[in-house]
């Protein structure tokens, strides 16, 4: 526990100042895709060539709509293509509803990237099990891009994805392409079958017991509703994937991204700095506790 404090007290070699860190840089919308009823993807390119969107999978940006507000959204694009910043989000609040109406050529503000990442570099030689629920696939897609680009470095790569209905699935075409690859195992399930769905029906956690991976050599990456992640952790533990082999991404209210505003406090952690990606054993004490 003290290590957190020591890290906090270390002075950075090059100071970053709040007065500039609170100013978004401009990005132009280059593409907009409607993923389903309320979820859409925007692709952004920095207006100034001096800016770039380099990030590591799992990190997030603060997206700013002029005068309206700013919200944290995970980055869902390819880390190898940092000039194309991709964000997938649902239109649920004032800012995201306005973002849903953006057109190509519109300019919005971006701050970031912030937070920790999926530790893919440290997981070479492992079976990678990705468990995603709903829009939780968005912050995991950069990890999938990186895994596919460096496929030889990993053993089995398994994606377990659950959505409410077939229509709610994100990145449908990409899921089909990944499923067609011989070196990826993609299993998809829906809560409720609609239309001509002939696939799995049920919770994504039900896929864990029979997914093809070697538990002792596995690393699990989780993102989805907190209750889904709680059950996924339990199902993984039943198969022998321990908390020290499990990473998950948490959602908390965020205003500054500088570990100052206090909104993303989670037990002893400051999620914008210590997360959003946590190793399960480091948050086990508080994860799943009521209203922490």
């Amino acid at each position: 526990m003290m290590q957190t404090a020591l890290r906090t007290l270390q002075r950075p070699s090059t100071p970053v100042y709040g007065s500039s860190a609170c100013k978004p840089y401009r990005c132009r919308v280059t593409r907009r895709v409607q993923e389903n009823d309320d979820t859409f993807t925007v692709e952004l390119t920095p207006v100034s060539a001096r800016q770039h969107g380099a990030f590591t999978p799992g990190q997030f940006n603060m997206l700013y709509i002029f005068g309206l507000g700013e919200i944290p959204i995970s980055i869902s694009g390819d880390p190898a293509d940092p000039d194309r910043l991709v964000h997938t989000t649902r239109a649920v609040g004032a800012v995201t509803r306005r973002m849903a109406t953006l057109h190509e050529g519109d300019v919005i503000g971006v701050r970031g990237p912030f937070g920790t990442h999926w530790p893919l570099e440290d997981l070479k030689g492992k079976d990678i099990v990705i468990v995603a629920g709903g829009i939780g696939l968005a912050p995991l897609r950069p990890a999938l891009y990186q895994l596919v680009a460096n496929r030889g470095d990993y053993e089995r790569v398994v994606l377990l994805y659950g959505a409410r209905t077939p229509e709610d699935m994100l990145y449908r075409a990409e899921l089909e392409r990944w499923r067609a690859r011989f070196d990826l195992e993609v299993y998809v399930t829906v809560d409720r079958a609609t239309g001509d769905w002939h696939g799995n029906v049920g919770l994504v956690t039900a896929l864990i017991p029979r997914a093809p991976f070697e538990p002792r050599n596995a690393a699990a990456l989780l993102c989805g509703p907190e209750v889904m992640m709680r059950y996924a952790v339990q199902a993984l533990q039943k198969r022998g994937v321990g908390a020290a082999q499990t990473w998950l991404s948490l959602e908390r209210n965020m205003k500054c991204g500088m570990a100052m505003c206090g909104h993303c406090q989670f037990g002893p952690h400051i999620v914008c700095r210590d997360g959003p990606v946590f190793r399960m054993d480091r948050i086990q004490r508080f994860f799943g506790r009521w209203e922490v």
Partner: protein
Amino acid sequence: MTEHEPHDRLYVLDRTDLQQLFDALRTRGYTVIAPQIENNVIIYGAVDRVEELPIGWTDVQAGGSYRLARRGDDALFGYTVGPHSWKRFLSPPLRMLWRARKTADGFEFIDDGSPPPRYALVGVRACELAAIQRLDDIYTRGAVIDDDYQARRGAAFIVAVNCGQAGATCFCASLGTGPSVGPGYDLALTELMEGEHRFVVAVGSERGAEVLAELPHRAASEGEIELAEAIVAQAASQMGRTLETAGLQELLYRNVEHPYWDAVAERCLTCGNCTLVCPTCFCFTIEDTTDLTGQIAERWRRTDSCFSTAFSFISSGSIRTSAKARYRQWLTHKLAGWQDQFGNIGCVGCGRCITWCPVGIDLTAEVAALRAEDVGQPPAEPILEMA
């Protein structure tokens, strides 16, 4: 603030010469901020003259109660702390971060807010100096430095005051933050009322020494030094509250699911007063606005409180909807999480949260009650519930 080893010599400044300290600070370009009475409470605000201080007044505090009373003498600092703390000058409750104009290719920044002022803070108590140092950890020791805070803090000239009495809600002695002021001041005063009305002065920095050199002063006698020490010792013996800090962090963590939080929640109004008066509560929110034309946008930083449901709002709703979760968050962060994050306890024992709680919820009593009912072991695994 450049810290220096305190000079071991102590000096004496006569009460009649204190105005010259204010004048010397003003001549150096400082706005002098000091205690004064407003609406029947002692607050902090700009002053020019020593006579504007709460001369001859003291405060009588209790859980949920604050009253002024006459002391029967002409003491200038004969009270403890009121609802204000110095954070309002170092990290203002409302501050514009920038202003931007809409342009053909997005927006451009046109204003970075006003330059930070130079304050001389007069009457900073030991617990308050410790609180300022807690804010330093948050705003200047992380990966991002709040340069506005850093500039205000670096410029601030601190005239600390040793407490000669403790209030009924004081417990700085439990936390080791007072009543004797620690390092970090420029000048520190101890007010002597016996005999000639005068101040024993300690020098804590070069600029403190420079200012004192401009004032009429003399070396303190052995008797005056002993008197000053006795006065502070008296305050230490008067602490109205205590907080047992041994094992505090683990106590709170392992009692995260304790039914005692329900008992607190029955009284807590979630008004957030405790967070407003707390000298270390640092949380803020960001507000983005436009003018009526929609052409000019501004970003403001505003004090926020973990007692609001909006504070923890995410796409699925608020994380902490219940009062008990919000009180638990505040207390656990202050006393436990803070230790993980910054290496010390986030409470300095000033007692403001006790005095200014409209229903008199007492942090020291809540911790003692939790300790008495300590479950003594980590809670069971969280119960899995489907949303």
